[in-house]
């Protein structure tokens, strides 16, 4: 996981500088009105919050699964009596 965060950060940085170097403001490729810009940035913040929230939920679920796996109670008992 640590390696991944490093790789992702490096890739993000390289591309960020790459694109800035070639930036030429000719055709408006991004909404220009302040209201739209504000809405977009707010939505992005909410989007990231949702991503972080989902990651936390998945991480918690994963920890619980790993705990159960460690206890060895996730496997089906072949000799368990069947209940009607």
């Amino acid at each position: 996981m640590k390696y991944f965060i490093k790789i992702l950060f490096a890739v993000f940085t390289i591309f960020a500088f790459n694109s800035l170097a070639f930036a030429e403001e000719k055709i408006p490729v991004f909404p220009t009105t302040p209201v739209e810009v504000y809405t977009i940035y707010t939505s992005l913040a909410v989007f990231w919050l949702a991503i972080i929230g989902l990651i936390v939920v998945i991480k918690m679920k994963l920890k619980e699964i790993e705990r159960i796996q460690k206890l060895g109670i996730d496997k089906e008992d072949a000799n368990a009596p069947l209940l009607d």
Partner: protein
Amino acid sequence: MIWLKCKNWIEERYDIAELKKLAKSKLVPQHHYDFLYYTGGITLFLFILQFITGMLLAFYYIPHVDFAYESIIDIVTKINMGWFFRGVHHWGAQLCIVFVFIHLFGTLLVKSYRKPREFLWVTGFILLVISIFFGLSGYLMLWDERAFAAVRVATGGAGNLPVIGSFIKIFLRGGTDVTGDTLTRFYAFHVAILPVLSLLLIGLHVLLVQYHGMSVPVSVEKKQKEGEPFFPNVFYKDMMIWLIVLGIVVTLAIFLPPEIGNKADALAPPPEGIKPEWYFLFMLETLKLFPGTIYGFNGETIAIVCVTIGIIFFFLIPFIDRKSNKGQKSHLFTIIAVIYVIYFITMTLVGFLS
């Protein structure tokens, strides 16, 4: 209740329990380099993202020389969220190629290509070529002066290959020069031929991974811990990483929306400081290393032949590296792999900074 009914309906017809059992029994090895396993998953995710955003853009794009450029401006300025989906498609493509390279170089460094996984390497390599051609063909869709010049240079470079060069050039361009025919041809490649080929190859690649299982590097074969179940453990980890990648793509699309230059004009001189896409920079810099003529031969042709030989050797590594195939450590091919990686990164950086 409806959900339960649907579940029962499916389970009566298909053996879902057996599939679940299979997914749970599949183990992913755990070792020092296991982070490399996730690069394949990220690439797959980005491919899916490209398919979705590409389909949305195809609703509005007009693949005609007179309207292509204008249709993109319409997508960006008039269509609701058009600028966003174009940005996501652009950055998704860039990151997809980055991760294909990382995945390929990772495979090369830990020698996952060794027997019996040679065919996995072959399918992966072809997928890299397809990804690059996806990038090039998609770049021309913009039909601005930079895209026009870049495609002219790239197809012209392919034309310098001995014997088959001129056939490739004319086949790609649909004529002797980059024209509206090239745009139509590249559009066909981009939305029909390449997606079908990549879907087939991705399917085959994933199938082969399931068949052979994950490869474990020779150096950590004895040190590896007990395998981790693919489902749900690794699948959940994959999902977390995919979410982060999605967030990065969306952030890049918002903060660095891809620019649009002036409309392509075949008679106008190419714009100053023009550079090909980043994944072609190492080739461009290699061409620059060669003089105009070498012992009376065209230097550019010799450079392209050298690059081609280098790429063919790269492709054939699984069949040449006999030590790895026997399960032994192969220091020579580790050095070769490191040279390839360093050369690619250095030349790309030099091309970018020059």
